[in-house]
């Protein structure tokens, strides 16, 4: 399946290669570089590139291209999904997945890749198993290893590999037993010129950090499970139980993992927690344009809207912007024409606004492209869908764990179509809406 893997950095250098079958010359990547050159944006490189003898399947994460070389038919998603899993594993091991981190840990990386694929077919991809095979590097361990000459390679076959619960290792011990669950929700919305919602959907995940001794069997139930329209689970979740009772029953992996991700469909009315009032006009013949933007909270159930960040791609005709924010700071990049305004927290008493003028290219006609506006924000302690965890129970172990549930809401992709005064065209604002609840 996967023949070789090349890691390419942003400047187009191959800084790591690994082969699982016969060695494939790195010149195969030239086809990739060609495609990279053709693409205007880094993310526009096609994920699958056919070459005369091979196929290159790549993913872009953390500004590193992971290029897998394939020789024969294989489901492309299989490879893509695997590459993402590799990145996740690196991130898990080294905290970050950057070129420097990979170079610094090149031996661990190699050992990991060796375990993850055998003859190009995935072998061990569960992070719990891998951690038993290869201990993640920590400063203490590297010190100890240097002194004692011991290794960071496990000597035993990971128990998970053979047990019924392959995602959990046995013999887990903690002095403080804790289980934390973060309910994080994202809103994706498209709003038309008049402020009415075209589409809005909520995507949520429940990320868990479980540090419990032994083999705990957890059940998590919701107050309103019917809200969840479409769900996908970590393999540990017992699907039948969910089908029958809408209860999440699972033996958790050790450490951090994503328990489930869900979708709340647009059928349920999604309340948009923020509104934007805007007035962006260009006058024909004048080299000036007016810019006026006001933000306000909406349906936040008394929770503060925080970390608000507005960004907008202004038309190419705009030379500069001279704006005056009522709070926060703004920057305008005259090259990329990207305006970004770091608003911070929205005070409902005094709504933040950004007003001023834009100077246009002299003599140029009125821009007819539409500025797009992205909004990022967080709202603490609110789940926008109204999802509530009812209770968390533990079976199978005697001790009493500490349990914590945190709700978060974030903005996903948020889009607006706005009527421009003096113009008879639509323009689209795309904004990201992030709400965080605890």
């Amino acid at each position: 399946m996967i023949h070789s893997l090349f890691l390419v950095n942003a400047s187009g250098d191959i800084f790591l290669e690994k082969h699982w079958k016969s060695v494939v010359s790195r010149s195969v990547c030239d086809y990739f570089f060609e495609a990279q050159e053709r693409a205007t944006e880094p993310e526009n490189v096609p994920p699958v590139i056919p070459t005369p003898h091979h196929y290159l399947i790549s993913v872009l994460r953390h500004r590193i291209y992971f290029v897998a070389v394939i020789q024969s038919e294989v489901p492309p998603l299989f490879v893509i999904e695997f590459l993402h899993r590799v990145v996740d594993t690196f991130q898990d091991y080294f905290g970050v997945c950057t070129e420097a981190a990979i170079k610094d840990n090149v031996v661990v990386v190699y050992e990991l890749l060796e375990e993850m694929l055998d003859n190009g077919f995935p072998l061990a991809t569960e992070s719990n198993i891998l951690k038993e095979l290869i201990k993640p590097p920590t400063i203490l361990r590297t010190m100890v290893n240097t002194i004692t000459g011991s290794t960071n390679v496990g000597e035993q076959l990971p128990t998970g590999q053979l047990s019924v619960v392959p995602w959990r290792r046995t013999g887990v011990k903690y002095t403080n037993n804790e289980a934390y669950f973060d309910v994080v929700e994202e809103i994706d919305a498209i709003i038309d010129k008049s402020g009415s919602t075209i589409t809005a959907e909520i995507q949520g995940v429940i990320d868990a950090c479980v540090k419990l001794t032994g083999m705990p069997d957890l059940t998590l139930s919701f107050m309103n499970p019917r809200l969840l329209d479409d769900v996908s689970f970590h393999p540990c979740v017992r699907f039948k139980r969910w089908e029958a009772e809408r209860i999440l029953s699972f033996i958790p992996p050790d450490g951090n993992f994503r328990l489930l991700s869900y979708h709340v469909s647009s059928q349920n009315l999604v309340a948009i927690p923020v509104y934007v009032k805007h007035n962006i006009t260009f006058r024909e013949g004048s080299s000036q344009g007016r810019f006026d933007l006001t933000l306000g909270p909406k349906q936040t159930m008394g929770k503060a809207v925080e970390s608000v960040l507005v960004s907008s791609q202004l038309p190419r005709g705009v030379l500069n912007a001279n704006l005056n924010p009522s709070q926060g700071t703004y920057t305008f990049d005259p090259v990329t024409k990207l305006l970004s305004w770091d608003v911070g927290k929205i005070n409902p008493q005094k709504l933040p606004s950004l007003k001023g003028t834009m100077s246009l290219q002299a003599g140029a006609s009125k821009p007819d492209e539409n500025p797009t506006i992205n909004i990022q924000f967080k709202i603490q302690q609110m789940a926008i869908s109204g999802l509530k965890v009812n209770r968390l129970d533990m079976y199978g172990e005697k001790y009493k764990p500490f349990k914590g549930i945190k709700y978060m809401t974030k903005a996903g992709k948020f889009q607006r179509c706005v009527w421009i005064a003096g113009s008879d065209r639509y323009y689209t604002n795309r904004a990201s809406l992030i709400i965080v609840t605890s």
Partner: protein
Amino acid sequence: MSASSAFNDEKGGSSSVGEPEYGHDPASGGIFSSDYKRHDDLKEMLDSNKDSLKLEAMKRIVAMIARGKNASDLFPAVVKNVACKNIEVKKLVYVYLVRYAEEQQDLALLSISTFQRGLKDPNQLIRASALRVLSSIRVTIIVPIMMLAIKEAASDMSPYVRKTAAHAIPKLYSLDPEQKDQLIEVIEKLLADKTTLVAGSVVMAFEEVCPERIDLIHKNYRKLCNLLIDVEEWGQVVIINMLTRYARTQFLNPNINESLLEEGGGGEKTFYGSDEDEDEDEEEKEKKAEVAAMAKRKPYVMDPDHRLLLRNTKPLLQSRNAAVVMAVAQLYFHLAPKAEVGVIAKALVRLLRSHSEVQYVVLQNVATMTIKRRGMFEPYLKSFYIRSTDPTQIKVLKLEVLTNLANETNISTILREFQTYIKSMDKDFVAATIQAIGRCATNIGEVRDTCLNGLVQLLSNRDELVVAESVVVIKKLLQMQPEKHSDIIKHMAKLTDNIQVPMARASILWLIGEYCEHVPKIAPDVLRKMAKSFTNEEDIVKLQIINLAAKLYLTNSKQTKLLTQYVLNLAKYDQNYDIRDRARFIRQLIVPTEKSGALSKYAKKLFLALKPAPVLESPFKDRDHFQLGSLSHLLNAKAGGYQELPDWPEAAPDPSVRNVEVPEWTKCSSREKRKEKKVEKPFYSDSEGESGPTESADSESDSASGSESGSGSEESGSGSESEESEEGSESEEEEEEEEEKDKKKKKKELKKPVPETESEQSSEEEDRKIKRKSKQRKSDSESESDEDEESESESSQSESEDSESEIEVKKKKKTAEMKPPSKPVKKETKKEKKEMSLLDLDDFEPAPSPQVTPVNTFLSNSLVTDLEGLSLSDSVLSPATIAPSSVLKNYELLHRITGEGLSVEYCFSRQPFSPDANMVAVQMQFTNSATSDTKNLHMEDVKLQSGMRVKEFPEIELLSAGETAMAVMGIDFCDSTQAANFQLCTHTRKFFVSIQPPVGELMRPIFLTENEFKKEQGQLMGMNEITEKLTLDAKCRNEHAIVQRVTTAANLSRVPCGSDKECRFAGRTVTSSSLVLVTVATKEEGAAQLTVNCEKMVIGTMLVKDILLALTQ
């Protein structure tokens, strides 16, 4: 620290001069002393006695390999360390070996003996890693050694080693394809492996080595389906893809009737119509066609195995792994009946939230799907709306999907959305949008004019690209109905002054030329302008100018003769030979000269022929002949190693190949068995002369139970052990069964003639069968002793057994009426044997032999008790069927005082609630003890937990003083004991009331035979089983009392039971139809044991409490 410092050293060194590169060449290596020294250094470290130094050296070498530097000259120094004790050094040496062994084959051989030793190591990890490295070293000389190692590992105790063996198979195959036959044997063996760990890897090996040997799958098909959910995610992808292909060869097209309707006989008829001259032939063909049509008309019944596959893959749509979801989606797309394909849409839409690479692949597949099954994705239209943050390639794909989804009803929404896209700053995307609008306009006639108008407006857009693209699209649209749109053509003619994009200019010129009659005044003027700028135009524009000139010359030679001459003269001396050629050709054709031949007469016809409008097609049309989700589909070209998705077979191949009961390797025996199977069925399924469909329907229910066992194992995660033990006992059971059968058959022959139609055949068959069976028995025992580990496809076995036993039960009932049964041979209850704890699965241990025996006795015991049941059945069945109406308990809903004279009582009538089978019927009795009449008695404001539903009772209009009335309402409690709250309203008052069901009322009785009961109970072990010891109430020590109390407490029915020490009850919960099984086993002195098996643990626990209470008080 050491690792990083080592790497930094290395990096520092290489960045200065890139020294290691010189290491390639031994000659140059000598010259650059520093480099020479460096490698010397490493060699020294490798030769030292200290592990830490070796480790350090190996780490540096691995870092070199990682950066693609050549480290091959260190081979001799490294290979020495292959036997190093330090496990990390060892691993890194392995890494090095695998990388360079191919280049240095002779030296690599030095390491082989170490691996061979490793293969015998008691530690499974070492065995596995030795095999991994040994098989990864691509040295042809060791092929025989590898072969041997693989064979050995394939029957290793540890499933992890067996998995490694499966991985090694394709490695060896790629090294030496001549080993194929031997490898297939190993694959066959591993396919029979029943651990989930091995399943994915061996199917992978199967796909790489022998994907054409689909026959190897037959016996393992059901097992694979049932194990699927427990296999690791990567294995799932491979297995699902393989099973898709398998199903295409083995089952009938589930959409066969629809495709018949769609395609109709039309195609066939015209085909036959064409060869009328061969009358005979035609008649024959017609006959055939008729026969085929007849066959098609026969109602399609899905093969139970087909259903099994669909059912067992469906939960995987919820997988977190996009590849798994996609695999299931393509399986459904290719295999499921049309009505069921819809389920995949939601999951695929979910994937659109993933990484952009995943989106890219998913959208490609969705685009193909939308062409075939548009309706599937229509509800999700908005999910394909484009966001400015999407990468261009994603935008274009989404556009494609939106275009495919467009129809009369949603086109206005889509067009509005498109309008916003045109304003985008991403020009490629804008161009694609305009193309999409064009396609919508051609596909949907209603909006053609709107689209055209919109596009014409775009012509005044400031962006030239937009205008150009619009022109191209408009040209295509105009071709469909040119006469209506001469003003648009005029408008476009004006554009030639401004527009510079060659393609657009060419399009305009072509349009004017083509429809010059519609614009007779403008056309010559355009030509005049063009002639002026001819020399500065691009080639495609020049060609079109020549074309235009020629067309005008033919229609309006008066005005344009000179112009044409001029243009042709210019073209004559053009740099481009195409243009020169074209000019020469056209001049000959249109300008009549003496030399010009007959062709010029037809010049008008040649140039002004009616041109058919172009069809704007999706590039994804017809891509679905590639298996969706595959690389080939994505590239729309066959990739190496792509396995063609076969067409559905005309007639289904024999389905019985999948119910092999014993591993038989010879063809002849399997054929024999197949025959036997065929005879068996009609024989056993007495009375109803069974035909095709019913038969398969019958077996469908079997397979359902089979899959239940599979999914049950998923739930508890301990399935395979019980399967294993079951399996171990299977052959023995069979023997017992046979004996029994023989007995019965004799009985039958003596006492009761078997149904007339089949009697002859059956008696004959019997004899034959007995013989055959005994043969088989021999082979059974042989195979068992041979291969302890050898697994059979257990699910299929249990299934076929089920069907047998079911039929047996039927028969038993019959015979029971006829004659008294024989006495039981032995009796014993070893039920405890089946209780296995949830997590102690250790699937790699061979089934220990002592375990087999007790299970065996248990199973055979059940058969014996079955026999006994024959005698009891009459008496036992009766109490079960008694409707315990006398014991219905009344509850008070509204007291006389609070109700101001109105009192309401209710009871759970235990009757099926006819309007909705999922509701519990609640019978209410209203008594009006007040002095005045009560009117308009009805309910209001029902407050329910989510999921619960209520069917209100009909309003009682008048309840006179002192009278009573009855009403029935239905409540769906969703299998919970949550109360249903509502208001009871009269014409004057409202009362808040609530109905809370005792758990025993949430179920309805079902009839099970003892066999079924035991089987079901076997599947509800572990967490689903609750056992409680109790002391029976003094008044309740006889069977009758127990039955009465239990049936009062819970709406269950009695299951016939051979033993008088045990009472069994069965029911299903009303909403979810989960089984509820209750067993009360009595012992001495009123001691008893209560066992409740129920999938729903909450219900089980509550039920135990209630029944305990009922029995002890």
